[in-house]
């Protein structure tokens, strides 16, 4: 059975590193794994989405509407934007972070109220985690992405602990490995 996980947020939040770590961890757990992402123009403060799929044998790296088992959201509005990708019995793990798109910041558009409420209205299995707080406590807001992976890990026990660790060691710069391993550990305990 192939599992599909969507990671979404805003350019600069470390989404592509997070989806790299997840797909490497899936590979090290013995699964076939594929991920898709888009580079280029969208990275200039635009919305970013990456899909990771793993299982016995994976064909498509990309998913469409109604195919995601889990949405891991680094920004809550982006979860709403991608909600149609979720299966009817899918799960959302989201950090309560608000980042205003430029049209909102300029006063040309409005950020909706109660975004988490809107997510809960559509999805019964929602986990709100304060990953930013944990990252700030650890002294580096940039590890929010790995805290989020820690929070995700409890929901996908088929990805083994050692595989996560190996993937983090491989994908983050040497001098930040320990910090990221701690961030992952703290994320595991959030959920």
């Amino acid at each position, binding site marked *: 059975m192939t599992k599909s996980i969507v990671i979404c947020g*805003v*350019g600069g939040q470390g989404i592509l590193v997070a989806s*790299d770590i997840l*797909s*490497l961890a899936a*590979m090290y757990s013995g699964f*076939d*794994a*594929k*991920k*898709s*992402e*888009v*580079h*280029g*123009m*969208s*990275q*200039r*403060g*635009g*919305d970013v989405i990456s899909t990771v799929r793993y299982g016995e044998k*994976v*064909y*498509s*790296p*990309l*998913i*469409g*509407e*109604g*195919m995601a088992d889990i949405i891991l959201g680094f920004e809550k*509005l*982006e979860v*709403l*934007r991608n*909600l*149609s990708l*979720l*299966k*009817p019995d899918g799960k959302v793990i989201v950090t309560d972070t608000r980042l*205003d*798109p*430029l*049209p*909102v*910041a*300029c*006063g*040309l*558009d*409005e*950020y*909706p*109220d109660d975004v988490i409420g*809107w997510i809960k*209205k*559509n999805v019964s299995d929602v986990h709100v985690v304060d990953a930013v707080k944990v990252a700030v406590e650890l002294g580096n807001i940039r590890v929010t992405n790995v805290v989020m992976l820690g929070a995700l890990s409890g929901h996908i026990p088929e990805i083994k602990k050692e595989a996560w660790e190996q993937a983090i060691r491989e994908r983050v710069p040497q001098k930040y490995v320990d910090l990221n391993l701690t961030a992952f550990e703290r994320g595991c305990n959030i959920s």
Partner: protein
Amino acid sequence: MKALLSGNEAVARGAWEGGVHVGCAYPGTPSTEIMEALSQYPEVYTEWSVNEKVSLEVASGASFAGARAMVAMKHVGLNVAADPLFSLSYIGATGGLVIVTCDDPGMHSSQNEQDNRHYARSAKVPLLEPSDSQEAKEFTRLAFEISEEFDTPVMVRLTTRISHSKSIVELGERKEVPVKEYVKDVKKRVILPAHARERHRFVEERMERLRKYAEEFPYNRIEEGDPELGIIADSVAYMYAKEVFPEASFLKLSMVWPFPRELVRRFASKVKKIIVVEENDPFIEEQVRLLGIEVTGKDKIPLVGELNPTRVAVCLGVKKEEELPKPELPHIPKRPPALCPGCPHTGVFNVIRKLKLIATGDIGCYTLGTLPPLNAMDTCVEMGASIGNAFGMQLVMKDDKLRKKVVAVIGDSTFFHSGITGLINLYYNRGITTVIILDNRTTAMTGHQDHPGTGKTAKGEKGREVDLVKLIKGIGIEHVYVVNPYDLKELTEVIKREIEREEPSVIIPRAPCVLLRRGEKFTPMRVIEDKCTGCRVCLKVGCPAISMRGDKARIDPFLCTGCTLCQQTCPFGAIEFVEEK
């Protein structure tokens, strides 16, 4: 050994394993990482060429001299390189010559959805299409062998979803291939009409031999399944179709040109009904129809946009549109990309908007100057177009006031790519255009690649730096001014003065891309609440660090780089530097 590689990384790995000697590219999403990855291998010479045409010329030169060479470019890059491509089809290859094109269905980072499979057909060269990273590696390696065996350039076509998706690849080792001795052969390499007539005959024979090769090509394979339904698919569309129709019979096409018509006939005889699943144009579908075989294809599957498994399922009636999740949602504001806080382009667009200029634009981060609140660009066509476009507009504008409002805006890398020819044309033909070259010392949009103006090579080594001012003065243009893009007063004065001139001039606002200054410690700015009247003028600067909090403006201290554009704009002196602790 196994590794998780993107399609682009896998192409580079395949070229390396295949003994490539030379790699050339101009950056372009989604192709850029191919040459970045290939540059990591010490055995291979790689370069950022000034444009795709030059890339292919350098690579084909290496091939003439007996080496294996590869070029990589985005789909529209092949338009620039099309001239050498068509000649090289006749000339053929001595050392293996491989052309990688990365198409962009869905236009994630492009101006069109052109389908470069058509190039293989019209230039008469073989085309390989991988559908995952393992195949991207294998096919690139094989492409060199096909090139040498059949005396032809070989095209490898990826799409965004192949280039930027990662999947598991079994790594191999490099096979060293010696550079062949150079042998002069003018009948092959000087395509005078007399020679070309001979070579064209050769090309047609070659394509027939290649067609037979395609019929037997092991990656063009029939996967027997339910005989009621046969699916023909290529590239990533094959993967989508496999998700949707796990039981069907498949003909997976990996070498789609020359078209393996006997294989298709054989497949058609085994199944009751055929569906062709492909992105972009009905390339395979039309070939199948030419064989007199009935198919379902683009009558159901859209020509526009990118596919995914759900889209394929809905188009082909496996799923109903009504069955898809329809979450109940509030209005969701768009999140378009924007110029970064501290971007050196922002000030220039503020001045262009304020002076109500007509700006012909070009391709790069600065194309974002089109979007609100900047609204400062009138046209954007293709790489290098801005200068010719501005000149052409001015040619026919009768009203002198209007005519003098036209400026061309182009980036430094784009200027070297193909802006310089437009500038020479403008000078020669007595134009008066003011050209603004936004010099941020890099090719920013594609992720910061070097170019002639930076003087650093693709390998990160010291090359020779082209002096932009000397180059332009060398054309004969007298009025060339380097200005500080963060000084709105200076920018305004210089632009106002130059657009009035009855001669061409070039203004170069020069400062490094703010993303190259990561790691620098910036002193951010703040809003003095007592002085802020909430007039929102600072919001028009177009800086993502500024927003309204209640009826006062606020500057995000984590995003602000202290560039002072907002301070220079605020009519009430309500913005100052945060005091250093």
